[in-house]
């Protein structure tokens, strides 16, 4: 009897559940008017808002939020003279790439978006792009740092440099003319002492791209590749790894981690174990672009870490222009003084540029037109004039920075075309 009941119940429950699914997930209200173009433009979002990468994901989301709020407060996007409001539909993809696939399907098929910002994590992005590209849905991101979004996808835009380009710039600087370095106020002797270069980072896709870039740049410019130390995801204690780094006897170390909790502890260890102390000239410290933000320099100082002398790069000259200050102020006003201003600004500007492209395309639905329009768009960013190349890769100069007395400073050196070779334009496997 119980068995019978069980089966009846299962039949009933399956019905119930299936209908729940059908009813439940479609909370999207499409307000489409008669001529096909809707009066609301929906932008999907795939962001890691929980788990270990939540900090980065949150700042991405805030960047998009800020852009959308400003557009909507001004009445909306101007599409052929018609005001179109923007609606943001962000989903949390956590850390699991299969979730990204589900949410991509949901955004495309249920929420009917034809543009998505994110995901950032490279594996998630790979899964997402497999669906979005055939469906002609545009994907862009300002922090993903991967060629997957440029050469890897027809409908993708990468609004930041990628791991390889970044590393090219650092090595380019090491190899630059001493006179140029001298003029930039850098410690020429220290830089010209560098013979062996090593890289430290987490064992993940982004860093592998970085290793490939750093290695080929070192070869190109005649530096010796001392090796890389990649720690496994979930590492809590960096002491053994930093000790291994020390044993590679590098003259320059590229710290290729991009979040504070992965940067501060290794830096502390490097100062403490001896032999890797950049403040004493043991090594030359080359940082990821996060290191080139004043916020990081300040946080490091609070933690008792002196990052003076470090060389890093950024998509922006050092933030002293009134435009940048104004943007940062708006961010702080909206998200509090702890907000990750530079990360938020980066996503904000990318989103604004895409919106400008939409306005210039004069449509929110014709994907091909939008793609063409964005590729022609010039957005007057607070950092530099933003354009993308034929692959959808942001044409971004690398501003080489250094840190002096706890303050991030411009060296005045920038690189652009010379960085685009090898792994810059290919997906390293």
């Amino acid at each position, binding site marked *: 009897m119980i068995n*019978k009941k069980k089966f009846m119940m299962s*039949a009933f429950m399956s019905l119930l559940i299936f209908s729940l*699914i*059908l009813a439940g*997930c479609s909370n999207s209200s499409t307000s489409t008017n008669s001529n096909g173009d809707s009066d609301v433009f929906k932008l999907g979002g795939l962001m890691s808002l929980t788990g270990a990468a939540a900090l980065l994901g949150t700042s991405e989301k805030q960047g998009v939020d800020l852009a959308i709020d400003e557009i909507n407060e001004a009445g909306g996007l101007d599409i052929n003279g018609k005001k179109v409001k923007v609606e943001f539909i962000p989903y*949390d993809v956590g850390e*699991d790439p299969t979730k990204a696939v589900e949410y991509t*399907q949901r955004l495309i098929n249920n929420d009917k978006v034809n543009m998505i910002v994110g995901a950032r994590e490279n*594996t998630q992005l790979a899964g997402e792009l497999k669906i979005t590209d055939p469906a002609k849905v545009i994907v862009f991101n300002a922090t993903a740092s991967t060629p997957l979004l440029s050469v890897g996808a027809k409908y993708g835009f990468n609004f930041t440099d990628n791991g390889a380009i970044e590393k090219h710039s650092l090595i380019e600087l090491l190899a630059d003319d001493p006179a140029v370095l001298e003029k930039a106020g850098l410690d020429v002797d220290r830089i010209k002492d560098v013979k062996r270069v090593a890289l430290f980072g987490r064992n*993940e896709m982004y860093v592998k791209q970085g290793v490939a870039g750093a290695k080929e740049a070192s070869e190109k410019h005649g530096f010796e590749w001392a090796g890389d130390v990649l720690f496994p995801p979930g590492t809590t204690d960096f002491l053994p790894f930093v000790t291994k780094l020390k044993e590679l006897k590098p003259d320059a170390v590229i710290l290729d981690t991009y979040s504070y909790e992965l940067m501060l502890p290794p830096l502390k260890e490097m100062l403490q174990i001896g032999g890797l102390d950049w403040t004493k000239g043991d090594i030359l410290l080359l940082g990821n672009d996060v290191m080139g933000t004043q916020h990081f320099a300040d946080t490091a100082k609070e933690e008792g870490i002196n990052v003076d002398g470090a060389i890093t790069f950024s998509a922006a000259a050092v933030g002293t222009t009134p435009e940048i200050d104004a943007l940062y102020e708006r961010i702080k006003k909206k998200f509090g003084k702890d907000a990750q201003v530079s990360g938020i600004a980066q996503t904000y500007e990318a989103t604004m540029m895409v919106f400008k492209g939409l306005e210039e395309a004069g449509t929110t639905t014709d994907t091909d037109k939008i793609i063409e329009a964005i590729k022609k768009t010039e957005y007057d960013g607070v950092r530099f004039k933003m354009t993308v190349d034929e692959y959808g890769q942001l044409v971004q100069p690398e501003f080489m920075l250094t840190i002096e007395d706890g303050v991030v400073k411009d060296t005045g050196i920038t690189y652009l075309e010379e960085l685009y070779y090898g792994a810059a334009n290919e997906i390293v496997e």
Partner: protein
Amino acid sequence: MSKITSNKKLLSLLIVLVIVLLLPLFINNAFYLQILVVAGIWAIVVLGLDLLVGYTGYVSFGHAAYFGIGGYTSAILVMKFGAPFWVSLPIAAILAGVIGYLISKPSFRLTGTYFAIGTLAFAEIVNIIFTNWESVTGGVYGLIGVPALFPNLKLYFYFVYAFLIIIGFIIYRLAASPVGKALIATKENENLAQSIGIDILRMKQFVFTLSCVIAGFGGALLVHLVGFASPLSFTVNTSLELIVIIIIGGAGTLIGPVFGAFFLLILSQYLATFTELRLMIYGLVLILVIKYFPGGIVGGIKRLATSMKKKGRKLDGTITSAKS
């Protein structure tokens, strides 16, 4: 009496079948199909795992390993050796089973918490291999561009649900057979079961291996569905999620975990924009289920039904009464 029962059973089974067969005719939305297929795959996996968790009381924190072994095996066979699916899927399941079998013997020297952490340790080893054996698994990149089994999701749906029903039927028969009864006897009192001549170790090994075979098969289905195999898909979190589904659905009821798979998947879609709150609610539901709804959703419904009939039947206070 029993004949009537089995006829009715057949009827209700038929109803379920018809519903399932008809569903794709009404659903043209790829997203609904996608999550129904994903839920179906998870349901297959937890069905197998429930035989271990619910029937023997051994909690595995490491089934993501077998899930992943199946996924990677099928992906590699198809991508690197050009194997057809009807070869790669069975081999994926078998390999996961063989590895599960080899691991099961030593693992059952452990009990309770030690067993859980022992299985977790093995799963971590497997994950590190996925992450680092670049020439075979693609390392941190994983394997991208795993071919789909079918050109469209509807076929996927039929395939997955056909297997859900077949596997469900097999496991259901198994649980109702003397093996299942022996398992329950084992769970209740291992020493006693041993003394009446049940070869407990072999029984547990069999169940463990079977759950690994099924997990491996599920993993293969998943990898072809999403189009990539990544080490990030088979982590501790995946293992924990499997257990959460079983507990919330109702461990040891077989049908419960299947509902659990659907329930959690739908819940996660409902709460998709609530981010932190989503996982918070998962945690809370988990605690409440263990404390107040022994037997999960299905157990709760059953209990409600029985208490409406007659009060007073006391329930076993433990869902997965542990070995100790």
